[in-house]
């Protein structure tokens, strides 16, 4: 399968990328390309222009400052996987990284790309929801910040406008009372999850507060199970599972009923992780 023809330009700055997006209505940004180029090869997508942002300096970088971990959108998954900063201060993301594809994919794929693509079965959008993270986007009117809860709109649809470039991801740095949990079920290592759960909470010594449970693979977007979050604060895992108000559709791998059931299984496992002492 060979892509349909397209033109190609390397953007030297975010501003240039934004301007090119404005000039060419069916242009696409090329970051890691691990999702985009596959869709181009299959002719599922036929943009007239690819804007390569890989050369823009200053878009990758992982920093711990002001109580947050800021990750440049162009940071490769592999760099995030190796990052001490993320391991220490954003442990939920560190837990998710080895599940993303395979080594060769992680060497090119970027966190910004994964989040902007917003595959419903991807790990990072759920991590962002679980961490109450925020996204920084740059568009024709300049920079703006979008909360993760407001970012994922629909199937492969985010709050990014047609001229926006996602430039940074920010999550609160983990504190001493932060607990995280992560579990996903995939038929084979590296596959998109059948069902997954990214979770964070704060422990008060006895019990949890600020529980955030973000499921992926269960709908058009990653989604928070808010009723279960509230129930889990009370410590009742069975009730939290009963309170799961997910309505997944069937897909090629499993039925919606099985997804919902498995979501409950993962909730039990992740609840246990949240309640365990931090190593």
């Amino acid at each position, binding site marked *: *399968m*060979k*892509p*349909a*023809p*397209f*033109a*190609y330009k390397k953007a030297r700055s975010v501003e240039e990328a934004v301007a090119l997006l404005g000039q060419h209505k069916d242009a696409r940004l*090329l970051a890691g*390309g*691990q999702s985009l*180029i*596959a869709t*181009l*090869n*299959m002719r599922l997508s036929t943009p007239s222009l*690819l804007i*390569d942002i*890989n050369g823009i300096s200053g878009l990758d970088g992982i920093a711990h400052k002001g109580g947050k971990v800021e990750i440049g959108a162009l940071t490769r998954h*592999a760099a995030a996987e190796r990052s001490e900063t993320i391991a220490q201060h954003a442990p939920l993301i560190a837990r998710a990284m080895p599940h993303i*594809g*395979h*080594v*060769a*994919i992680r*060497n*090119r794929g970027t966190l910004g790309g994964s989040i902007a693509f917003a595959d419903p079965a991807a790990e990072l959008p759920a991590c962002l929801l679980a961490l109450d993270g925020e996204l920084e986007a740059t568009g024709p009117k300049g920079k703006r910040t979008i909360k993760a809860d407001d970012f994922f709109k629909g199937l492969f649809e985010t709050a990014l406008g047609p001229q926006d470039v996602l430039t940074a991801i920010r999550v609160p740095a983990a504190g001493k009372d932060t607990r995280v949990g992560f579990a996903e079920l995939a038929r*084979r*290592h*590296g596959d998109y999850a059948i069902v997954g759960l990214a979770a964070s909470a704060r422990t008060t010594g006895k019990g949890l507060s600020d529980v955030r449970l973000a499921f992926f693979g269960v709908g058009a977007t990653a989604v928070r199970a808010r009723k279960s979050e509230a129930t889990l604060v009370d410590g009742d895992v069975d009730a939290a599972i009963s309170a799961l108000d997910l309505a997944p559709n069937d897909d090629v791998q499993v039925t919606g009923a099985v997804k919902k059931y498995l979501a409950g299984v993962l909730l039990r496992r992740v609840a246990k992780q949240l309640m365990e002492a931090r190593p």
Partner: protein
Amino acid sequence: MSGYALDISLTVNGERLSAHVEPRKTLVDFLRDDLSLTGSHVGCEHGVCGACTVRVNGAIVRGCLMLAVQCDGATVETIEGLSDSGEVADLQKAFEQRNALQCGYCTPGMIATAQDLLKCGGVPGREEIREHISGNYCRCTGYHAIVDAVEAVAQARARTQMKK
């Protein structure tokens, strides 16, 4: 559009070269068609099978999920280069001795991926080896002999390291 081609310069297996390529041409097609480096193989063109795995700027990537134009200024290494330099000679020998290749189609990608694991040093266990090559599809061997070969090379390299 045909004729919409761009100039690129890159280093492939240590050789500096220039080329004129259409933006839509993937790296693996460029290597195979334009440079006649047919050792990297095309198995799926959607990044799943790993037969196109090559090294770009020192990191293994899917040759079908990168465009040749993205490699302007890059250093690309294919199985031919890894082979001629001797970098993977012990891996190749171990594969041959254990018949860890049958049809040979997955082998270039498999060896590049195995080398990526082993050059970090240490002796990975069988489960870790299986996990690292979990993105390289082999239909012939059932993977057992491949894991044997990689494990043996890891142990041999560690012994050589210890002697140093």
